[in-house]
């Protein structure tokens, strides 16, 4: 009898366990379904672009800008496309502004300028000429803003500088890199663009003769370092009984020193951001902080 009661109690308990287990399982299924849904939505917005890019690279198709648009979201302007096999009536293009014509004329005077113009046209970058607001490349929208308060030559130098940023769109990767590496690589990109603007201005001056246009940002510092490094190297070689550097070797020594001088200017605060006067390294650090400022990853 005692055994029967115990068996009965055990069966009843098992029945209760089965009932409660169903409830738990149901709740867990709901949780799992929701988790999959949330993950799916996040993957669709954050990784979709990268997955598409990877597929494009694998199969060599030309879909770079489309994948960027998907990943970036927002209300980006439509990018130029190849004409369809049966195009409709031609869409009238707006006349280029005086500022645009002047800038392109200055760009067409140099090889670096012509290359920059061609790159922008080939890669569907929208160029907006407007008074004020500064000149910069907005990678999120793939747009150049050119401040028409600058002279045409300054605009051309800026154009060359900003094309460098556009060529490195989404690089360095703020999501994947450490704060330190992101700052370092961002400064490298800024230095590269600044040196290209200097070289463009040198070509303009060479073509026109004299100091027309005047030196651009850090050009004097670049040229001083360039000349000084070659002179130092030749003095050292002379003391060692060696011939002076040939033209190619001298150019390499000079360019390396010039670039290092530009980099130094970004690091020591000779060049600062026009937004807040902060050093570029500080601004890139804050950019990294903003990009990683999340309470929980699902809320990022």
């Amino acid at each position, binding site marked *: 009898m005692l055994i029967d009661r115990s068996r009965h109690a055990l069966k009843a308990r098992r029945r209760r*366990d089965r009932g409660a287990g169903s409830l738990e399982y149901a709740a867990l299924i709901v949780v799992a379904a929701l988790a999959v849904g949330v993950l799916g939505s996040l993957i669709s917005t954050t990784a979709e672009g990268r997955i598409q890019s990877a597929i494009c690279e694998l199969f060599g198709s030309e879909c770079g800008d489309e994948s960027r648009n998907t990943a970036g979201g927002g209300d980006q302007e439509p990018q130029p496309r190849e004409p369809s096999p049966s195009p409709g009536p031609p869409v009238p293009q707006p006349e280029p502004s005086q500022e645009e014509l002047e800038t392109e004329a200055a760009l067409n005077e140099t090889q670096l300028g012509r290359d920059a113009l061609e790159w922008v046209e080939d890669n569907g970058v929208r160029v907006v000429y407007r008074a004020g607001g500064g000149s910069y490349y907005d990678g999120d929208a793939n747009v150049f803003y050119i401040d028409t308060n600058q002279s045409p030559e300054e605009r051309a130098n800026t154009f060359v500088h900003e094309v460098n940023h556009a060529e490195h769109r989404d690089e360095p990767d703020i999501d994947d890199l450490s704060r330190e590496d992101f700052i370092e690589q961002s400064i490298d990109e800024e230095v590269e663009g600044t040196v290209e603007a200097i070289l463009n201005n040198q070509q303009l001056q060479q073509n026109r003769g004299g100091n027309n246009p005047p030196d651009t940002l850090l050009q004097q510092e670049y040229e001083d370092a360039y000349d000084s490094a070659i002179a130092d190297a030749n003095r050292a070689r002379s003391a060692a009984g060696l011939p002076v550097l040939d033209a190619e070797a001298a150019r390499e020594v000079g360019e390396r020193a010039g670039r290092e001088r530009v980099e130094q200017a970004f690091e020591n605060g000779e060049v600062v951001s026009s937004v807040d006067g902060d050093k570029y390294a500080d601004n890139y650090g804050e950019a990294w902080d903003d990009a990683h400022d999340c309470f929980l990853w699902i809320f990022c």
Partner: protein
Amino acid sequence: MTHMTVSCGSSADGCRSRRLAVGVALALVALLLTGCASASGTGGASERNTRPDEGTRQTISEGLLKSGKNEEARIVKLGGSRLTQVKTPFLRNWKIYRVVYRQSSHPVLLHIATGHGQVELLTGSPKAFGRVTEADGGTVENAAAAATLARVYVETTRPGGILTYVVGRVEDIKFRPGITGDAARHRDEIVAEYRPRIKAPAAVANEKGFTATVYVVKDKALQRHDIKVSAKGTIEDDVKTLVPDLPVPYTL
């Protein structure tokens, strides 16, 4: 109100564990539902977030779109941008926001005012600031409020792309580091001449309101702004360039 009962029978331990399991599951469901609500219906990554200021961003963005400021409208809503309210004790109904977006090769700074269902882009537009103070209907009651208004006016209407900041003493001028020779001598002369002259923003009463004096570095120039502020907030700005060629850092 809905009550949920879990029958436990005679086993106290089992009861506790089942209640705990169901409680945890329900908490997770609630948490995930919150996450889903925030993640859905917002489109791309640029807008996907649950920022507490999302409503304000939406209002500002829509207002900017209406006035044709499409690029600024887009930046206000971008992920990674910071939106902070500027202290404006002289405004009753309107608010001014500072938007900084650094997720690009060059950062972008905007100042935007909103109130009465309207939006004004202040960056590069001193006239827009006057429209805001007049529409707000507030009153500038004393010299301290006038000085604050004048400072905010200078800081929020500064042009984009040109470094502009208020200085309260000569040491606030950020000179280019490492300068020597003529540039260093020029710096020392400026410091000696303007040390006793540059003061923090201050205002004095006049017959129609107040006149505030604000010293400003704009690009390479040291400027003095004499800003007349009426009791109703209308503004008249008289700018004098004191030094046109400060040896300050290059800006990009």
